[in-house]
């Protein structure tokens, strides 16, 4: 029994050492790299098959209500056309104002499209695995976005895959602004579908429906990217701040493709290895 207990002690000690190494190094080791190399093709195949099945269901079986849906879509197209023309006007006006103010034209950062191949297996963490890695230029701390808003940031890369920490993960915190009132706060994940916007003063005028954008101060996300929309505001009797809940713009439940913004934040660029 003593012999077994001693061995068990060694195993638990090994687990501790492994954990300590993981905390200190923060890098993908050889074993992890190999495991990802072996596993990711299987995950790709399963995700691809499910998506194909979903497409089949949506494209063929759901055709029953096609006529009704068609009418609704025609209406929607008309609305969108008018909205689009307004947007073009606004963009042109914006461009004129920018040139008037002497702002330099900002070239868009290079981006690479990646497919979501797996989610986190733990109930406690919110991360996804995507099919682009260091060979495609992905590096740690690179922002990951979709057109609806910020998805998260790259936290681990192997040759062909990267792990992305979602903004809904409790370990994620982003420096943001409320677009309308310009109030600044920190958006923290809650492990659920909504995030919490912290440190918004009681006097700040915010309301549900206000858009949240990145402030650019956190050092990871460029300024002005859409993050989400306020869904709940609570002013408590005590305390200095309001309780604000934000629905992320990106829909994580249906996330299939994302963009990695291939630009590192300025202060990490010197340290980052060349890809």
């Amino acid at each position, binding site marked *: 029994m003593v012999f077994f207990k001693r061995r068990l002690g060694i195993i638990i000690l090994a687990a501790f050492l492994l954990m300590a190494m*993981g905390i200190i190094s923060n890098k993908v080791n050889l074993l992890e790299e190999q495991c990802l190399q072996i596993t990711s093709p299987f995950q790709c195949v399963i995700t691809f098959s499910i998506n194909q099945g979903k497409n089949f269901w949506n494209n063929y079986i759901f055709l029953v209500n096609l006529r009704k849906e068609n009418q609704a879509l025609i209406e929607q197209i008309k609305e969108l056309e008018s909205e689009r023309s307004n947007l073009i006007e606004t963009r042109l006006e914006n461009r004129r104002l920018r040139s008037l103010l002497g702002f330099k034209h900002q070239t868009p950062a290079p981006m690479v499209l990646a497919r979501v191949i797996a989610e986190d297996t733990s109930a406690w963490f919110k991360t996804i695995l995507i099919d682009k890695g260091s060979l495609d230029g992905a590096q740690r701390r690179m922002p990951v976005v979709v057109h609806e808003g910020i998805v998260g940031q790259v936290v681990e890369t192997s040759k062909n895959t990267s792990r992305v920490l979602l903004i809904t993960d409790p370990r994620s915190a982003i420096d943001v602004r409320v677009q309308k009132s310009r109030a600044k706060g920190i958006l923290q994940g809650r492990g659920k579908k909504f995030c919490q916007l912290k440190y918004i003063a009681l006097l700040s005028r915010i309301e549900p429906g206000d858009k949240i954008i990145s402030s650019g101060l956190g050092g990871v996300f460029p300024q002005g990217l859409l993050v989400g929309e306020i869904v709940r505001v609570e002013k408590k009797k005590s305390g200095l701040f309001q309780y604000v809940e934000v629905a992320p713009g990106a829909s994580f439940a249906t996330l299939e493709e994302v963009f990695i913004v291939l630009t590192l934040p300025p202060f990490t660029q010197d340290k980052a290895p060349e890809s």
Partner: protein
Amino acid sequence: MRDFLIFLAVGWAFLVFRSTLFRFFPEELLRVEPVTVIVIYLGFTRTLLRGSLISFLLGYMTDLFSGGFAGLYTLVLTTIFFLTRMIRNRFYTKELLFRMGTVFLLSFLGGIVMFLVLMIDQPVFELYPKFFSYLVSVALFNAIFSPLILMLFKKIDIAEKKFAGESN
């Protein structure tokens, strides 16, 4: 050796399915952690040394699939295995309901171990304000799904014994 390979292969398959198929189910289902149930089964049926080594490897594999830091699940699952052994040695554990209860209790205790480890790195209550209610839901879902996994491994064990008998 065959035992090692079977548990690691099935554990790996569970993790692959958990990370791909479960994405399309409601969020509440994502709280199931099948590998925890596998480790509890190991605690009920395997020797101390063999079971703890398989639990260690399953834990490490879970770490590779998860966005947490390496070694977290290795430690949690090895501890759960050890606790299962302690319960096995003191109580009658053949009843399915008792085993489901054990899965609930040990998933909860495993969560406490994780809580203590995470506390070293950062204040957990700031990250998870409803840590304990979330933990109860994880443990509950593990308990609800445990009969399926426990029965699957029982069947695998019977098939393995049959195969070993035939080859002898």
